[in-house]
């Protein structure tokens, strides 16, 4: 189901993770969890009791058999059945209750486990939505995914199996020790000594196993990484006749994996038979010691004061089985507990991530004009204003949304000490088109990242309709900005759903109108199911150009006053490109537009062009101005530099 985690070996769980897991589950199920735990405890206690009953019955049998030898079987049974039948009936009743509670806790555990996982998944997801873009830029997407696949899975194992199992085993052991002491202290000591040996061995082997397990995971990661890389380049391998070499290298990593995995599995595979048979040997030991004590008639030491008899030794043998079985269970669960806790600690890690900070208080509201004044209203009026509460005097003012953006002496760095933007000043009046050109890494995308506050500036000011954008609530700010990115991201769902993403309450007509506006309607209606065509895998069934058109339509239906466009660099054929271009043009009309330009026609039609180099604006002006200046822009224009 889930792909194995191939990254570096995970760190151990943080301290306190176990308690936090329990606290978390408890907070989800404050009633069900204690009830379940009570059932588990009850079941565990009851299911370790039968040896007590067994002892009573066997004592009767012991006596009965002796009596039968002289008085005959029937008479003996008559005499002893009073000792047997009530005990068996009582046992039956206890069994019934314990079965019921076992049934209940098993069912409840299924409910609790899945419910907990769902709630954790939901929490993780909603927390993830709140994280700043920076988080996604600095974390490997595969690693983020692994929270949802691997870590949640190990947690499932932990909550649904390991924890109840540990609880059961722990209680069983305790009850059994009590019962054993009740029967005979001497024999209890024998068992405890044996269990010590068992845990010593399992620790030895288990430790070796864990060490090799880690190395096996590393070798596995390496092999899978190699396979992945080579499969992606398989066509290149063919073209270069590199097959033999590729096989040799593969054999190397594969053989190494074999060696490591063999060692790890050998440890793991021998642990069970060894533990089992130490249990067997212990069983024999108890039988022998019991026999010797019986025959030598060594005085018994017990909490019950029972004398040592066959009816004590035999249940003791059964207890031995149960006891070693429980110890085996615990050693079995240790590994998955460790893994589960590591997974849980990673899940908590993402839950504890600092969410995006938003101290903005200026919001975007619908307004209508009443007597020359802007009045806020609930319904959509098509005109928007910034609602600006003033803290000092408690008044509220409304500033109409126009799309005027000014940057003043802005500095920015992603990593401390490595400035990406230096002293950037620019302004865009409503309806103006500003183009950024420059080489890769010049800082074009960074500027747009600052306008919609994916990142916050280090120094300087950005004002939007005269308001410092730090004062604007991020959701309001972003709602007023439309974005078409270079890498198109479409979501699973119909074409209509994808366009509607721009404005969730848009009617079908509005979506189709937006598609028409940008020229996407034509190809969409030719799709097999038209607007209802299902897209999956980021629109894998569409061409690059078609995907771009849908993303443009999505921005168009949102109809924001300011647009940020990042033109695609990837080569699509000229005809599709012309359609996409027309779509972009339609979108840019009558808006303030910031465009990271790769096409000359876009640049030419811009009101102002900013030529960026190493985070600084080195030239600015209209196309004609800049050509006349014969500077950097001129070189770019004549294709002497890589534009990316």
């Amino acid at each position, binding site marked *: 189901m889930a792909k194995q985690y191939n990254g570096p070996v995970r760190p151990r769980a943080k301290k306190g993770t176990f308690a936090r897991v329990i606290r978390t589950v408890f907070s989800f199920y404050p009633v069900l969890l204690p009830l379940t735990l009570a059932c588990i405890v009850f079941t565990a206690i009851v299911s370790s009791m039968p040896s007590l009953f067994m002892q009573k019955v066997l004592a009767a049998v012991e006596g009965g058999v002796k009596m039968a030898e002289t008085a005959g079987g029937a008479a003996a049974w008559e005499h002893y059945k009073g000792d047997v039948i009530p005990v*068996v009936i009582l046992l039956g009743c206890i069994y019934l209750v314990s079965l019921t509670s076992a049934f209940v806790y098993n069912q409840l555990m299924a409910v609790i486990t*899945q419910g907990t996982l769902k709630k954790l998944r939901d929490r993780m997801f909603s927390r993830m939505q709140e994280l700043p873009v920076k988080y996604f830029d600095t974390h490997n997407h595969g690693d983020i995914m692994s929270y949802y696949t691997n870590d949640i899975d190990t947690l499932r194992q932990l909550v649904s199996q390991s924890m109840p199992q540990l609880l059961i085993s722990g209680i069983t052991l305790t009850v059994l020790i009590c019962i054993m002491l009740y029967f005979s202290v001497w024999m209890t000591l024998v068992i405890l000594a044996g269990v010590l040996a068992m845990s010593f061995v399992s620790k030895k082997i288990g430790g070796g196993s864990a060490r090799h397990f880690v190395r096996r995971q590393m070798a596995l990661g390496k092999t899978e990484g190699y396979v992945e890389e080579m499969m992606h380049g398989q066509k290149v391998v063919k073209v270069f006749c590199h097959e033999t070499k590729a096989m040799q290298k593969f054999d190397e990593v*594969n053989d190494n994996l074999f060696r490591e995995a063999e060692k790890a599995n050998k440890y793991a595979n021998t642990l069970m038979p060894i533990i089992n048979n130490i249990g067997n040997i212990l069983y024999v030991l108890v039988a022998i010691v019991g026999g010797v004590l019986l025959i030598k008639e060594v005085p018994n030491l017990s909490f019950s004061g029972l004398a040592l008899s066959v009816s004590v030794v035999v249940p003791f043998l059964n207890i031995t089985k149960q006891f070693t079985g429980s110890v085996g269970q615990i050693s079995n669960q240790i590994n998955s507990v460790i893994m589960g806790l590591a997974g849980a600690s990673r899940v908590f890690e993402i839950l504890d991530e600092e969410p995006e900070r938003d101290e903005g208080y200026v919001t975007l509201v619908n307004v209508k004009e009443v007597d020359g004044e802007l009045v806020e209203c609930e319904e959509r009026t098509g005109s928007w204003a910034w609602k600006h509460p003033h803290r000092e005097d408690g008044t509220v003012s409304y500033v109409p949304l126009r799309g005027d953006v000014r940057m003043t002496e802005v500095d920015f760095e992603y990593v401390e000490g490595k400035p990406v933007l230096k002293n950037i000043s620019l302004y865009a009046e409503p309806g103006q088109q500003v183009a950024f050109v420059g080489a890769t890494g010049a800082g074009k995308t960074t500027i747009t990242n600052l306008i919609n506050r994916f990142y916050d500036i280090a120094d300087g000011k950005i004002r939007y309709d005269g308001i410092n954008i730090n004062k604007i609530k991020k959701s309001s700010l972003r709602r007023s900005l439309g974005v078409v990115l270079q890498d198109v991201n479409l979501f699973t769902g119909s074409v209509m759903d994808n366009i509607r993403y721009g404005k969730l309450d848009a009617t079908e007509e509005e979506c189709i109108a937006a598609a028409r506006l940008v020229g996407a309607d034509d190809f969409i209606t030719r799709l097999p199911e038209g607007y209802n065509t299902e897209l999956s895998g980021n629109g894998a069934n569409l061409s690059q150009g078609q995907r771009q058109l849908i993303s443009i339509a999505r921005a168009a239906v949102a109809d924001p006053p300011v647009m940020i466009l990042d033109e695609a660099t990837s080569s699509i054929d000229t005809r599709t490109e012309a359609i996409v271009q027309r779509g972009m043009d339609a979108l840019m009309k009558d808006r303030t537009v910031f465009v990271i330009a790769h096409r000359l026609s876009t640049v030419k039609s811009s009101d102002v062009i900013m030529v960026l180099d190493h985070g600084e604006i080195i030239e600015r002006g209209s196309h004609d101005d800049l050509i006349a200046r014969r500077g950097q822009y001129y070189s770019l224009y004549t294709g002497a530099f890589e534009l990316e």
Partner: protein
Amino acid sequence: MIGILLKSVREFKKPSILTPILVFFEVIMECTIPMVIAELVEKYEESSDISVILTYGAIVAALALLSLTFGALAGLNCATASVGFAKNLRKDLYYKVQDFSFENIDKFSTSSLVTRMTTDVSNVQMSYMMIIRTAIRAPFMFIFAIVMAFVMGGRMAWIFICVIPILGGTLVFVASRAMPLFRKVFKKYDKLNESVQENVKGMRVVKSFVREEYETERFGYASEDVRRDFTKAERILALNGPIMQLCLNIVMIFVLSFGSYTSISSAGSLLGIGQMSALLTYGFMILSSLMMLSMIFVMLTMSAESARRIVEVLREESTIKNPENPILEVKDGSIDFSSVSFKYSKTADRYALSDIDLHIASGETIGIIGGTGSSKSTLIQLISRLYDVTEGSVSVGGVDVRDYDLDTLRNNVAVVLQKNVLFSGSIKENLRWGNENATDEEMREAARLACADEFIESFPDGYDTYIEQGGANVSGGQKQRLCIARALLKKPKVLILDDSTSAVDTRTDAHIRAAMREYIPETTKLIIAQRIASVEDADRIVVLDGGRIIALGNHEELLGSCDVYREIYVSQMKGGDDNG
């Protein structure tokens, strides 16, 4: 299907066969122990001789030691066998794929091949381990324990015959009800995770449109759906435990009541205390081996899908094979397409290429231009026999490409693929793909031709600079130039550039073409491009549309005669030379 998988056992046959045999002995020992113990307990009563007890004790201890030895040996052999089997399976898959043609690779897709070699192999390995160890152990134990129960308990053992159907029936019921549910929910679960991935990738879109809450809400619905189904399946599965307990309880009650009755009324001759205890132990063995069987069944059905997917690859025959008496030399770089038609699969109803007749002289430079889907890449992939023609023939150096030794052909026809890949390793290592024995001087030479020397030397480590997987640490234009240099090192007779300079600026692009013209004039060069500028100085330009050659000639001729060409040219000139 199983036959094909078993072929991968090979050198691990011995441990694979030894494991079940050892397990068999282990089970015998394990099943004998309770019987001997029962005898031992009976001896408590009869004799007061410690030596008898010690003798029995020694026997049991010896049995336990034997069981331990067999068990441990089985574990060791099983580890070797299963890990080795997985190793061979992975190797067989990998080798098989090396033999695949492009058509085979397309059929499976890269990511599905990766899954088959990783996750699927792991699943099959787990199952193999289960089969040779547990799947043998459980039925053996089941049978032995029943036999022993009858030997020990006589009529009493019939209780098992009554209880087994209860547990067995439940297990079958649970498996048959839960399995389809699990299969269904796993699919939903995968979908859920896919949607998370989409969300992570599209986070900028989500945030730009302020759709965080909307996404969370949608995710909540989907995860609730998964939860509901998972809970349903898990609750069915959760019946197993209590039913197992119920059966054990029934056995216990029965043995205690009827056992004590039988024992007392027969004065211990039909059933002793030790035997009663042994019966309980056997009961536990019988029922737990049933549980084990059902678990194995579930595991096996789950991994059957993985096995099927692996076998699918192993069964696949490469569609392109070396001819029997291959020609080992390519005379020159002339290329001839004679009435070539091609479609990607036999069942496809549309031809990707139709009626292609094209004759290229050795040393010519040919530009190829056309819209998306005009089959430019398809055309050139026929030359190095990455695909075989459906009709007609393609010849290089006057010989049908199907008569060449594949390596010979591909070493002489170098293709720089559109979706090109660099591999993790130093620049040198990457370049050496073209020629293993290339000297530093040759590498510099090739880099110079591809205009890559300048930026390589600007790196602090020069040619030893480490390239990350997929070439993540070089820019698109640099990557393309490294790929060209790599191909040049082959010193091919034919060099094909499939849109290989799209990310390179126009000036460098022109430099590369000029360098090739000057330094490798005798090499036939085919250049696919989106930009007219990249092909306008070619000797001849092929204009493709819908899989047909609609025009052929040099730049000036085409401007005069070909509408499509002129249209492209005008749009690029008007829109400026797209540098993207």
